[in-house]
């Protein structure tokens, strides 16, 4: 109870409330603009949060992520261009509804079931994370080593396209993390005498580069795409939503469950949750034939799923320090910057901060309903902001943001290099998310490996000796074995 009061006190600050409202609007705006993803919104915000106290910083991230993931539905329904990859699964369906004159029903379902999914996901987060943290308290470097391996593997497993290329992307990220002095031997690796390189590659400029700069390059290198006529949503948004809640209880419950679970898996985020939920809703539907023609059922399930996964992603991030997706990869970076090392101890040492974050999750998902209504009404104007005006301003923001982290132009150069790299990687079928996962988890992997090696005195057996470590180790090796087996069978 004391913790709850302390948490509420942290939040009942006009500054924090102002930030929650401002970041809601920012998240809705970024999510509603087709090219800008939620991960990009968060990476743009990190330099800003750098200068805030922990609670406002995390509140800003939570709110922005939740709002951006919902707002991605808006251009999906009105333009057939998903605002974020998380809305891609049902953009066709929503657009088909819009063409039938049901834009209000589609977008209303987007808001209502996003909020429901988000709240269910948060309830699971609030109940399961502290319990898992109890277990994780007993973890030693052996368990963490395997957990990181498993997280990295999931990141590769889930990437679409060539798995070899996903592995290479991951290895590259791990490699980038080895640059500098931050290693168990404190040896200035690959620094070549440079002080800047000796300090290592900062994760934030690298991420801003790979997500934001690469995206800017993609936009300016495309001939101005023909913008289809924008449908408005002028009718009442919430009419008929209560009926949907009563009609499809199984769908939104299942969607929320899938979303939370997929979110909690390291490496898998909202977009995969939405695809899986859309698939399951079609599979179990009594009206399969209506899917694709503008049928709201799939939107109910996958709209709930992608927002549930926003909360689910935080479970491994808070408990183990292993990101659930690229957004929480950034969150973990922010937690370290704030001196709040993620891991089970955070629940013991800073329970009021964790509780405050949980409360912000509820607030953000409740605020989503009125703010989402506002965004839908304003969407026609948001979608008309021309990209040639938007992109240069975003670029300047990235430059200053990267600069602000270390106060040196070196960070801007890092951002530039990773931006070019990210652009060419995507052009050639290399997913960038595993590279980010590698940069974030690289030091954790290496440190836990060396700590374990020193404890085990160079032997392999102790890696499997403790029961949980053994189970995790066997699971990791089994997944690797399966991946190699299927790769070989596909080839044969």
């Amino acid at each position, binding site marked *: 109870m004391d913790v709850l009061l302390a948490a509420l006190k942290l939040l009942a600050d006009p500054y924090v409330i102002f930030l929650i409202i401002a970041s809601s609007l920012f998240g809705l705006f970024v999510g509603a603009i087709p090219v800008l993803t939620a991960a990009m919104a968060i990476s743009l915000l990190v330099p*800003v949060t*750098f*200068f805030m106290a922990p609670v406002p910083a995390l509140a800003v991230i939570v709110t922005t992520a939740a709002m951006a993931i919902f707002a991605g539905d808006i251009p999906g329904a009105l333009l057939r261009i998903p605002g974020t990859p998380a809305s891609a699964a049902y953009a066709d369906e929503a657009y088909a509804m819009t063409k039938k004159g049901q834009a209000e029903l589609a977008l209303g379902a987007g808001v209502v079931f996003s909020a429901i999914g988000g709240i269910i996901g948060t309830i699971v987060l609030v109940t399961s994370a502290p319990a898992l943290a109890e277990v994780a308290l007993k973890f030693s470097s052996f368990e963490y080593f395997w957990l990181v391996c498993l997280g990295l593997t999931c990141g590769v497993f889930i990437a679409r396209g*060539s798995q*070899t*290329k996903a*592995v*290479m992307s991951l*290895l*590259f990220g*791990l*490699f980038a993390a*080895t640059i500098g002095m931050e*290693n*168990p*031997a404190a*040896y200035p*690796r*690959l620094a070549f005498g440079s002080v800047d390189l000796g300090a290592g590659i900062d994760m934030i400029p690298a991420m801003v580069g790979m997500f934001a*700069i690469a995206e*800017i*390059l993609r936009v*300016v*290198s*495309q*001939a101005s795409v023909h913008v289809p006529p924008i449908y408005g949503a002028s009718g009442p948004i919430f009419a008929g939503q209560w009926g949907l809640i009563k009609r499809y209880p199984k769908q939104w419950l299942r969607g929320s469950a899938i979303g939370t679970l997929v979110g909690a898996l390291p490496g898998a985020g909202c977009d995969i949750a939405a695809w899986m939920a859309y698939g399951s809703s079609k599979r179990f539907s009594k009206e399969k034939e209506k899917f694709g023609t503008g049928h709201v059922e799939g939107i109910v399930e996958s709209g709930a799923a992608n927002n549930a996964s926003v909360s689910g992603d935080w479970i491994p991030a808070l408990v183990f320090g292993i990101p659930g997706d690229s957004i929480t990869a950034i969150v973990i970076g922010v937690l370290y910057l704030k001196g709040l090392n993620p891991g089970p101890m955070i629940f013991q040492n800073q329970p009021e901060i964790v509780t405050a974050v949980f409360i912000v999750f509820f607030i953000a998902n409740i605020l989503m309903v009125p703010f989402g209504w506002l965004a839908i009404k304003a969407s026609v104007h948001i979608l008309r902001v*021309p990209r*040639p*005006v938007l*992109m*240069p*301003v975003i*670029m*300047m*923001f990235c*430059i*200053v943001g990267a*600069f*602000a982290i270390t*106060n040196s*132009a070196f960070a*801007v*150069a890092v*951002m*530039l290099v990773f*931006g*070019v790299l990210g652009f*060419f990687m995507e*052009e*050639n079928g290399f997913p960038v998310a595993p590279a980010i996962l590698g940069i974030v988890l690289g030091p954790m992997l*290496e440190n836990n490996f*060396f700590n374990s*090696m*020193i404890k085990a005195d*160079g032997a392999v057996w102790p890696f499997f000796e403790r029961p949980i470590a053994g189970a995790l180790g066997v699971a990791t090796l089994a997944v690797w074995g399966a991946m190699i087996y299927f790769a070989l069978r596909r080839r044969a």
Partner: protein
Amino acid sequence: MKVSDLLVGLASVVFGLAILGYGVTLPPMPGQRYGAGLFPMLLGAGFAFCGALVARKGWRERRESRAPLVALADWARDRYLVGNLLVVLGLILVYVLFSERIGFIPLSIAILIALFLRLRVPPVRSVVIAVAATALIYVAFARFLRVTLPRGLLEGIVW
């Protein structure tokens, strides 16, 4: 720009081997068999191995379909679009090199105007938005977040 998997793979093999070679030169930790070199060695070897797989796949594809080594994407054939790409990269580089000397405010306005004009935003609108956006970013970062942005030419004028 789609580069053939053959070339990407071969380049990755070279890069991986270079990392591997570098890792070998690092000393082990005192009292341990391994040191700072172990991870670069493992990563380099893994990267080279995956690179070889990708190269092999690229080799087969080329044998079957005679795909070109470097396939230009639509944008790479269009001078204007390639130019856009280079202008963005060039302007960021300009910021890296000259921000200290010229200062954030003048440089940001200049970079924004240059990019707006390149992307065919009308001139008057370009100038107005460039000044407004710079002012907004300046206030947000320098005043609100207290980041020391480089002053450059405006040293002593803006504080």
